[in-house]
């Protein structure tokens, strides 16, 4: 566990007389996500363990909330994946919210946990399933339009939020023309949406409920708890005060979720987050690491490759709890069409390890084929020359390059009577 403080230039201290709200923010847990299509290819048992990680992170989040004496917990969406969420997971989440009582919890359902007739965010559905209502300290924004809610514990704070009703991208600009009912109070926005004027940090997330920095600042909220992007990022106004933040995923599981993750804790006052108060607190020891390991023709079998990979993993400082995506690069002996790694070795390497061999190429002596006079006259050489020319033509087009390279290797494999087969990630 570690904390990451957001360092900002020194600003005039906020008066103690002004009201403040200590908050904890987390989102994008994606409980019970099937992780379909992920190149990490988690098997069911590891997906289950990842879910337990998230649950443990939530439990840790409760402890943090108590330690930090937060007054409100903000959850801007995607707490689970609705198409695969289990009853036990949803009820566990709400039971966790109940543990936070009397601290209010505000939830703005996102595109992956939309508010609809059969959503666990829907009080009626929840009650029907669980036999009891939502905890009293939980407020769920159940309207697709921005609405204002208050909580008795924080009479001087207005909370604004809205929900997704389905996993369909929203194109309406929610913050356009928004005005607060009580501008003199602390106004906090809980929103699941995409900042569309900043590409970095967006990762592979699709745009939905888009807004810009200017729109957010113009809306006049003192703070916006944002969800959807899986990486931590902040939105500052011209004076440098944090006016909004994406907490990112608390527990990483995807290839685009490398680096540190956790929950956000801070203090909101009029005009933004109190400088120096915003900090990220890790809730899970697990990391996603991407490594590249160079192979060459000297590696003639899986054992040799494993040894090299193990060394790279150790050098990267990966722990047994980490998730590793290892990309092999380089050229192997032409007779080595792929390494069949021992699954037990992969399990020992890390919590979950994947070796991508799609970029490994057979070590045909292309230089010789291209430059040796005799070889040039042979079909093999001429073939290599032609493919080299196609490669040059494909410069700048990565997909075409990959195709030509693959065609080159397949052709050479075929000319040498080797088995033709695609190279996979395993």
């Amino acid at each position, binding site marked *: 566990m570690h904390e990451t403080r957001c360092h900002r230039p020194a600003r005039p201290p906020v008066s103690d007389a002004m009201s403040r709200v200590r908050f904890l923010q987390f989102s994008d847990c994606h409980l019970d996500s099937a992780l379909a299509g992920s190149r990490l290819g988690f098997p069911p048992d590891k997906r289950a363990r990842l879910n337990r990680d998230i649950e443990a992170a939530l439990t840790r989040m409760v402890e943090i909330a108590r330690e930090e004496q937060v007054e409100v917990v903000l959850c801007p969406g995607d707490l689970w994946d609705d198409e695969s969420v289990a009853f036990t997971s949803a009820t566990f989440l709400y039971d966790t919210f109940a543990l936070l009582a009397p601290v209010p919890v505000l939830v703005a359902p996102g595109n992956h946990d939309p508010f609809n007739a059969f959503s666990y965010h829907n009080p009626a559905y929840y009650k029907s399933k669980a036999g009891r209502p939502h905890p009293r300290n939980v407020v769920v924004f159940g309207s697709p339009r921005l609405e204002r809610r208050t909580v008795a514990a924080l009479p001087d704070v207005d909370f604004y939020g809205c929900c997704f009703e389905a996993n369909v991208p929203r194109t309406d600009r929610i913050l356009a023309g928004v005005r607060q009912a009580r501008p003199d109070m602390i106004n906090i926005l809980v929103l699941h949406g995409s900042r569309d004027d900043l590409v970095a940090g967006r990762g592979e997330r699709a745009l939905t409920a888009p807004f810009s920095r200017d729109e957010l600042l113009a809306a006049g909220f003192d703070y916006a708890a944002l969800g959807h992007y899986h990486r931590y990022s902040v939105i500052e106004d011209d004076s440098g005060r944090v006016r909004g933040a994406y907490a990112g995923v608390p527990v990483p599981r995807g290839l685009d979720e490398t680096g540190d993750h956790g929950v956000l804790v801070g203090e909101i006052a009029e005009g933004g987050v109190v400088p120096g108060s915003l900090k990220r607190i890790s809730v899970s020891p697990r990391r996603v690491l991407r490594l590249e390991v160079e192979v060459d023709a000297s590696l003639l079998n899986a054992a040799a490759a494993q040894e090299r990979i193990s060394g790279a993993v150790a050098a990267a400082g990966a722990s047994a709890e980490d998730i590793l995506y290892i990309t092999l690069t380089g050229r192997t002996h032409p007779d080595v069409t792929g390494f069949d790694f021992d699954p037990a070795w992969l399990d020992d390497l890390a919590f979950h390890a994947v070796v991508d061999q799609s970029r490994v190429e057979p070590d045909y002596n292309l230089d010789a084929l291209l430059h040796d006079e005799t070889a040039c006259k042979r079909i093999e050489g001429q*073939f290599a020359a032609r493919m080299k020319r196609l490669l040059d033509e494909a410069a700048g087009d990565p997909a075409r390059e990959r195709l030509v390279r693959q065609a080159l290797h397949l052709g050479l494999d075929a000319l040498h009577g080797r088995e033709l087969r695609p190279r996979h990630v395993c």
Partner: protein
Amino acid sequence: MLIRRVTLRSFGRLSGTFRFEPGCCNVVCERNEAGKSTLVDAILYSFYPPQRSRRGRRNDLHPLDKYAPWAGTGSYGVELELEEPGGRRLLLVNEFGNTPRTTLTDLKAGTPVPLDRQSFGERFFRMSQASFLQCFFLRQDEREALDRGELVQVIERAAVSDRRREDAPVRAALEALKTPRLRYDEFSSNPLQTATLLSRIEERLREEQSRLDNLEADRARCAQEIAAAEGLDAQIEALSETLVRADYECLAAEAAEAEATLERHARLAETQAAREARMAELEPYAAMDLSRRDEARRLHAEWLAQSDRAQEARRRLAEDMQPALEETAGKLAQFAPALRERASRAAVERLRALMTRLEAAREEVARQRQHCETLRTAMAAQGMPLEAYQQVTQKLDALPEPERQMLLTYHQRKSELEASAAEASRRAAEAEARAATARADRERLQGRAYMLLGASAASVVGAVLLILMNLLWAQVVAGLILLAGVAAAVVGLRQWKQAQRVEAEQRDPARQEQLAATAEASRLSERLAALRSEAEETLQRHGLDAAYLDHLRDLGPWARQAGEYQAAKQALEQAEATAAHTADEAWQLVRLAVPDAEPQGLDTAVIERAIGAFEQCVEVSEAAARLESEASRVREELEAAQSSAESRRAALEALIGPPSGRQSLSDAYAEYERRCEFAAEYHRLAGERPPGGLSTEEECANLERLAAAARARMAELVSQDASLASIRPSAPRAELQARLDDLKARLHDLRLRRVNAFKDADQAIERWRREGPNHTAEIARLETLRDTIAGFQQAAALAHEELAAISEQVFSRWAVEIERGVGGIISQITDRYSDVTVTEDLDVSVFSHEAGRRLSSRELAYLSTGARGQMALALRVAVSEYLSEHCGLLPLALDEPFGHWDDERFVAGMRFLSALASRHQVLVLSCHGWRFERLVQTHPDLAKSLHITRLENPGKSL
């Protein structure tokens, strides 16, 4: 392809078996016309059997005829034993002659090898005979005759043919890249082509997608159903509120009921205490026997009643009955005893009826008398001898009825009979007249007939006579007469018939009618006589004379009036008798009331007076009787009451004891009754139980707890909803409970509906959540796999395309190859020329060291024959070498290739061919045997690679 053996059977002049040595240059040295070309042609025509349909020049011999057996006739053939580069041994047998036939057999397998309607050369060499001759079988006369055009085509075809790839690995590579196969056990246990694999992946994707779509559709449908189910929540909430209110009301009623019960219990407890105190007071009376109380009460009541009854009877007798009796008796004494005795209501009615009858009888008498008088007056006016009539009728009345009737109707019957008889006689007369008339007519007609017939006969006779005269005019006349006679006969016959008809139709019926009428008249006369006889007998029997009948006849018209008068007189007498009788009967009663009344003078006034007296007497008598009857009854009643009272008294005293001292029975009874009342009260109190069965403290405690619990629950409900406090029970608890139960049932139903609707929809959603990710993951996996395989397929196709293009280019550069080949061969044959170039048109140019320049293909034509022959040989051998790499190493036959070569070039050429023989089967035919003999001597090393033989010894291997 190696030719191991050639067996000729009468092929031209050759027969026998000839074997070739592999790896050597086989040289056949024979003189001219020994059959060297025949041998070559035998091989050639085995590879390419000539077709008879092929056109040739008119004077040319067909190849098949050219090599027909010199000796003998019939078929001739060639048998080749061949060896393919792979080692397969084939036997090619050609039978020529009239029925050419070619067979190819795999010698090891023993099975035929199909030729697919092609010659062996076309099938296995894939070139025409001409091309084959151009390249592999170089005839002596065709050394320089190079058909470049066709040869270029052959070379081109060989270069681009898939089968003639110069490099087996390239072919395999192209094959592998063209249809790459991958094995994925989930789709097949065998490797599949990528297209098939992708198709199966797409199919699997569609299945998964379809399943996922179905789950999505179910989810969408269930979302609507859950939304609809949530619509029931409002109803459930409303019903729940109503239920709470009903529950509160029911609790209120329950509490009120419990409290009321407790209050009632308290009241009952008080009542119970009072009872017990009272019982203590009444203890002394507890032992009383109350079983006869009712009897005592009854006896006392009866005693009182009877006493009162007797008292009443006594009073009535004394005050009411007695005076009335005395008065009535006085009134009754005023009437006569007989009247008193007979006076009754019936007598009064009887007297009234008699009066009415008497009046009616007297009126009837008067009327009858008047009627009689009227009748008599009328008869007198009509002159009726009434006395005589009466006398007659008297006598007549004395007769028995049949005889009287007979006499009364005698004259009438007599008249009728006489009339009938007269009528019958008249009819008989008329009938007789008609009959006479008919007879006259008949006779008349018969007379005519006789006359005509006679005339006819006469005419006939006359005619005959005239005819006999034999005169013309006589015959004519005779004819006429005859005709007339015939006519007369005809008429006569007709007359006769008519007479017969008259007889039958007129005379005979008239006759019969006459007879009938006559008989009837006779019968009537007899009846009349009988009537007369009867009447006379009757008169005589009763002593009446015949005039009596006349009197009857005369008085007959007066019968009616006389009868009427007689009847009236009888009626009058009857009426008088009735009146007299009635008067007498009435007098019998009247004289009781009016003693001085006489029967004759009995009129209506007297009778009415009598009736009045009767009525009075009757009334008085009835009144007296009533009074007496009443008094008698009252007396009886008095006696009965007294008796009954006495008996009751005795029984009552026996029951309750005699009164004491001055105490009356009533007082004694009252005392008795009081004691019984106390005893009854005691027993009643002793038998009483509090109503409701509330008898234990436990039950009271339970009720108190129940009430307290209900109040507490009510308070709890009020704490949740203060508006409930104003609710008061509006009905009994049972009814409220029933309402509450109904509400609960309805709420349960609603909730059940909600739950079921929710459950069904939620099951589908849970299924979507449970199974959807699996399908999504599977789809993602399949898509990744598809992309990988599609990429692989694309890459393989690209590699194949490029590799094929290269192969095409390589093999299209055959000119370069051939150029290289030619250059190599030239360099082995001579050193005068070098740097050979060959164009794609097979134009050869060389650099002549002697000339110091390059000689074009046209300039080569000016070289010597030998030099040109060397160029041509080099070109052909280079072409054959090139083609051999495509179609296999074919045997090379050179017929006198070095004819114009000098010795040095000959040796070089043979050395070249010997070297070539290590790759090709080379067959050299030459007639210059001495050259080869010298070669053997001068170049023994070279000779080792030669296999020189002759054709003169058939059967000897070459």
